[in-house]
């Protein structure tokens, strides 16, 4: 058996210096172990008893925030042969994701309980999706980006179909799954061509290789197109937005809330890792593609949203238009542009979380469990029946429209600033015009709430914790207008 000496220990690479790597990976490892433990506890505690799962999930996420803050001291190390990077951006995004998921769970629970949808799986899949986002935030290699993305997407597909008896949800899940699979295929195809040309999957090595090339290989532009398509799909930018309205409307509102918030951070960090960390030398080429995506998203998102009569669908098109703004920030390809895009993403997630939380807290008298508060006309006269919720909705809608006294104003301002600074005056003008078009449908919601008579009385769920978190969320919209620098300084420093 001469094959024995091939397998001898000596021929294996030394593993001892990898121990340090595992220590730095602590937050992700903790997250995985905790989630698996909660999975088992949820299994044996019985399906009805989801309170325990809920509390343990929140505890896990809180511990995660501490671990991530503690992980700041390992900043700027690259581990696992360049698979994993820990830098300011990764940590900042991870902390934001964990905070967002905590808020999502708190908002979602009263809704789930009210409709008998509450099962441990909601939190388990949510936690696994969070793990996927954390992996994406630290990815420094095509393979890790892709695996993180798939982990996130698989959980989201399952969550959309989570309420099995609803036909709309099943249809939305199938659409999301099929389109998502095609987008993943596109992304992988682009990655494989880049690998074929550069001979490496590592983003920093790709960047180094490209920087040393004198003339641009046309195959790379071809590959870049596919990679940009993959990113645009994850963002939901026009013309890869087909899934957004259907999924937002078809999924149970609690799941829509999840999809509309935390994964936006993941899409942002994926764009930064792929386009900035890996393909920065092709900046001129992807800038043109992002301009097209951003312009189309701004125009189509805002114009089509006007025609919507259902608020979840309207918010879906509004998301598309906000994504246009994020892309406007990204396309400048320099650090202030990235920082403004990150600021916009964070503000958008704050606004979307609050808006969907209000939808979750309200309920109509319909006996159909699968029918959520969705029609715009449901909001008529909300200020009389629920003055506080209506006021928070007013703040959120003003913020989405970009009206001063709300942080949405600064978010738009910084993106426009980066555009003007990079001589994209026409794009800045277009963005402003489209924001004014968009203001129409945000203000219409306010008009319904404050100036119209009550048609159907909505009741609200008795959920003190969710209402308290929602109030903080709504007031942050104003608070961050007064002190935008707290958030902006972080956003700038991670790209410093």
């Amino acid at each position, binding site marked *: 058996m001469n094959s024995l000496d091939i397998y001898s220990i000596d021929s*294996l690479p030394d593993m001892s210096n990898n121990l340090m790597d595992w220590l730095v990976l602590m937050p992700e490892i903790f997250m995985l172990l905790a989630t698996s433990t909660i999975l088992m506890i949820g299994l044996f505690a019985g399906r009805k008893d989801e309170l325990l799962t809920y509390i343990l999930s929140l505890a896990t996420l809180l511990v995660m925030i501490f671990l991530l803050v503690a992980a700041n001291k390992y900043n700027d190390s690259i581990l696992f042969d360049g698979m994993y990077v820990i830098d300011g951006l990764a940590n900042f995004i991870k902390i934001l994701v964990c905070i967002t998921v905590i808020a999502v769970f708190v908002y979602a629970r009263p809704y789930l309980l009210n409709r008998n949808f509450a099962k441990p799986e909601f939190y388990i899949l949510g936690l696994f999706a969070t793990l996927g986002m954390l*992996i994406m935030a630290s990815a420094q*290699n095509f393979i890790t980006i892709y695996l993180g993305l798939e982990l996130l997407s698989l959980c989201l597909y399952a969550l959309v179909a*989570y309420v099995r008896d609803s036909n709309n949800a099943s249809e939305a899940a199938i659409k999301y799954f099929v389109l998502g699979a095609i987008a993943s295929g596109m992304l992988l195809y682009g990655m494989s061509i880049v690998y074929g*040309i550069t001979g490496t999957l590592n983003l920093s090595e790709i960047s180094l290789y490209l920087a040393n090339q004198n003339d641009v290989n046309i195959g790379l532009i*071809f590959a870049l197109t596919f990679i940009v398509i993959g990113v645009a799909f994850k963002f939901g930018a026009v013309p890869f937005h087909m899934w957004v309205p259907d999924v937002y409307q078809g999924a149970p509102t609690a799941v829509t809330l999840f999809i509309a918030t935390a994964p936006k951070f993941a899409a942002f960090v994926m764009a930064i890792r792929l386009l900035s960390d890996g393909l920065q030398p092709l900046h001129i080429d992807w800038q043109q593609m992002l301009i097209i995506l951003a312009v189309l998203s701004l125009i189509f998102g805002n114009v089509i949203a006007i025609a919507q009569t259902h608020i979840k669908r309207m918010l879906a098109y509004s998301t598309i238009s906000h994504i246009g703004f994020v892309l406007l920030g990204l396309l400048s390809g320099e650090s202030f542009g990235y920082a403004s895009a990150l600021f916009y993403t964070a503000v958008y997630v704050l606004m979307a979380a609050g808006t969907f939380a209000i939808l979750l807290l309200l309920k109509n008298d319909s006996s159909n469990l699968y029918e959520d508060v969705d029609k715009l006309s449901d909001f008529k006269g909300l200020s009389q029946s629920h003055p506080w919720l209506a006021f928070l909705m007013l703040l959120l809608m003003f913020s989405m429209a970009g009206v001063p006294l709300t942080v949405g104003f600064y978010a738009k301002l910084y993106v426009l600033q980066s555009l003007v600074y990079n001589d994209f005056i026409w794009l800045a003008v277009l963005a402003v015009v489209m924001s004014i078009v968009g203001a129409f449908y945000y203000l219409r919601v306010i008009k319904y709430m404050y100036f119209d008579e009550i048609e159907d009385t909505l009741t609200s769920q008795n959920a003190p914790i969710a209402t308290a978190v929602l109030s903080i969320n709504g007031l942050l919209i104003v608070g961050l207008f007064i002190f935008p620098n707290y958030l902006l300084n972080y956003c700038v420093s991670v790209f410093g």
Partner: protein
Amino acid sequence: MLIQSAVFYFFAIILVSSAVAMITVRNPVHAALFLVLAFFTSGALWIMLEAEFLGITLVLVYVGAVMVLFLFVVMMLDINIAKMRAGFAKYLPVGLIVGAVMAAEMVIILSKSNFEHAQVKPKPPDYSNTQELGELLFTEYVYPFEIAGVILLVAIIAAITLTMRKRTVSKHQKPHQQIHADKTKRVRLVDIEK
């Protein structure tokens, strides 16, 4: 070299035509069988690329396990082909044009000269594919390998979440009650008048 190219084109033609047939045939069982053929020939192509382990795995896992299960499912489901194929003729011309344009663009752009950097050096004859893969998976690629494991776990959870229902009408045996049954619970004595 000539023989190698000939073998390659032989497998490539079978692969492409079975893939086309898989989409176009009317019978879903035939479609699944054509997919098996496509997997099998791509496995052969991988072996030609000296990726023996992957080629064998493709045949074992996909052909041997996945597709057989898939065939069972296809045979048990009553799929209405006519309804699924509605609009096929309508979309065919557009699809053909888009496909042809994309294929032409790819042929123009992705010429061999683009990939000069990534020339693979031939390996020595005693090179073990399996050992090399194993070493890479547990050293350089251990982090993505673990993530792939988590993805599989999520797939299990998602599948169970979406399909498991507590059946209240299902009839199953309760061994505990069966053991503790005696004749008083089972036999009823009835006086029958003559």
